[in-house]
């Protein structure tokens, strides 16, 4: 069931032409762009998502259910709708986009940063949800013990809280990165499909399927290999504890 599609893909790989296909600039541009944007999105998710997860797990503030609902919304929303929403908000005439354009001249749609924003929007909930759950399950008395030993808030977070939720944190990061790496709908809607600027691997596959089957297969193979390598490597190294 899980293997059949990959076998189908392998059966279609034009092995003799593969090196030439992989060296083509459509493929290399897309791979580079995909790696850069998915990693950027993961980084932003860490910076924004972990504090957000901490707030939702530890602070009792009014409207927390609403915040949690909003954070998880991208998980259930069709990515195309997410991309459209981003366009209305951050586009040249968007609620936030127009002032941003006037103030800084920065235009997110149809730019590489737009890809990063779309990826983050879709993928960050995975990190927030896993980390929030891990923080809730963590026995907070350990943090009290650390404080009684002289550790300030930052030291407690760095040396006790984060290491203790380590396996969940890594799992969340991997899920987030994987989701960003495979992102299609929100990206194509919000950032468009320009080779070298916004055309990530999934988008390139989509285009190639229409015109050049062999390139599409080669691109798909690259995606499968990269994803599988990362997942297997990290699973071996970190998820044993789970």
């Amino acid at each position, binding site marked *: 069931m899980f293997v059949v599609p990959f076998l189908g893909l392998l059966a279609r790989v034009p092995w003799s032409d593969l090196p030439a296909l992989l060296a083509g600039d459509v493929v290399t541009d897309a791979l580079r762009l995909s790696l850069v944007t998915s990693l950027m999105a993961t980084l932003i998710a860490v910076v924004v998502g972990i504090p957000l997860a901490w707030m939702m797990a530890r602070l009792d503030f009014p409207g927390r259910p609403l915040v949690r609902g909003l954070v998880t919304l991208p998980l259930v929303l069709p990515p195309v709708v997410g991309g459209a929403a981003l366009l209305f908000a951050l586009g040249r005439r968007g609620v936030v986009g127009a002032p941003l354009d006037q103030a800084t001249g920065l235009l997110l749609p149809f730019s590489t940063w737009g890809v990063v924003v779309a990826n983050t929007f879709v993928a960050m909930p995975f990190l927030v949800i896993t980390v929030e759950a891990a923080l809730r399950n963590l026995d907070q008395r*350990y943090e*009290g013990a*650390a404080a*009684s*030993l*002289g550790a300030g808030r930052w*030291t407690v977070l760095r040396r006790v809280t984060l290491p203790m939720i380590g396996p969940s944190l890594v799992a969340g990061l991997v899920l987030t990165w994987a989701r960003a790496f495979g992102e299609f709908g929100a990206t194509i809607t919000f950032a468009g499909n320009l080779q070298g600027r916004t055309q990530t691997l999934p988008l390139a596959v989509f285009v190639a399927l229409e015109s050049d089957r062999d390139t599409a297969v080669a691109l798909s193979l690259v995606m499968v290999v990269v994803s599988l390598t990362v997942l297997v490597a990290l699973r071996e190294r970190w998820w044993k504890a789970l």
Partner: protein
Amino acid sequence: MEGVIGQGLEADFGLRRGDSFRIDLSLSIPAGTTTALLGPNGAGKSTAVAAIAGLLAIDSGRIGLAGSTLDDPSADVFVPPEARRIGVVFQDYLLFPHMTVLENVAFGLRSRGVSRVEAMDRAGSWLERLDLTTLERSKPPQLSGGQAQRVALARALVIDPDLLLLDEPLSALDVTTRVELRRVLARHLEDFPGPRLVITHDPTEAFLLADEVHIIENGAVTQAGSPDEIRLRPRTFYAADLAGSNLLIGRASDGQVQVGSHLIHLPEEHIHGEVLLTIRPSAISLHRGPPEGSPRNTWQTTIVVMEPLGERTRIRTGAPIPLTVEVTTEASRALELGEGEEVWVAIKATEIGVEFGGVYTRSR
């Protein structure tokens, strides 16, 4: 509230938790002495630990340690937990599972800005003192309960605290380990120069480790005094229940234990070494004259206190070995017992509970 005494702990505070629970506590522990806070589950012991350690802020009153104020809401003083010099051994120990034993012990020093090399060095020497050197590189999940307890003790002591606070230090251990570790604990309590506070629900622990026992029930101290005072003159039902069992400490040889000037016979002849004897009050009988028959432990004494408790009467006897005795009120009437009366005590050797393994007797 000015003028804190010396290096001790001075705590007198109130703290509300939720709508219905409130604790009011007054503790004064001079340096070099051990106080036990003894109470049933839900009495507010953990809340007291959290307040003193600074994990909960008090609502009223004051907590002072070693001459400085840690918490005083009326003066707007609150020292956060990381700035208090309190060594806490937490219930369940709470060793950090992702760090080695050595890193756990060094944690407090590292957090207080001691260099890595020096922290590891000092942590290592504490592990040596507690006989844990071979476990330096182990992770806490690999430790036995007794080892974890000693690591927790090392972690609390290495920071050279002004107060040693132990929350149920022995309750996570099985019975045999508990006896041995009580001895280790007693020795380190004795060595610690500051005030020491032991939180426990186990009367044996409290009576053996502490110079002063505070009984806490429903958030308030209902009785405070030396272990003997509490045992002999309990003032609440809970304290009376605690005092229920008579506790005698001595050294056995050939099945006999010297307690004070008196020799107690044990059920078996081959018992040697330090022992803790427990005798249920209802297992002791009183007689008007020298008892006849099998009981080998008999002596003459005086009735000091008589407390009728409905169908039963609780009696406290005096020298040579003060005991709590419980007889039916009917029997007490039939014998015409009264305070100040001379009686004979009789205890069957088989009714004496013996706990082995070196009970530590404190030098007072």
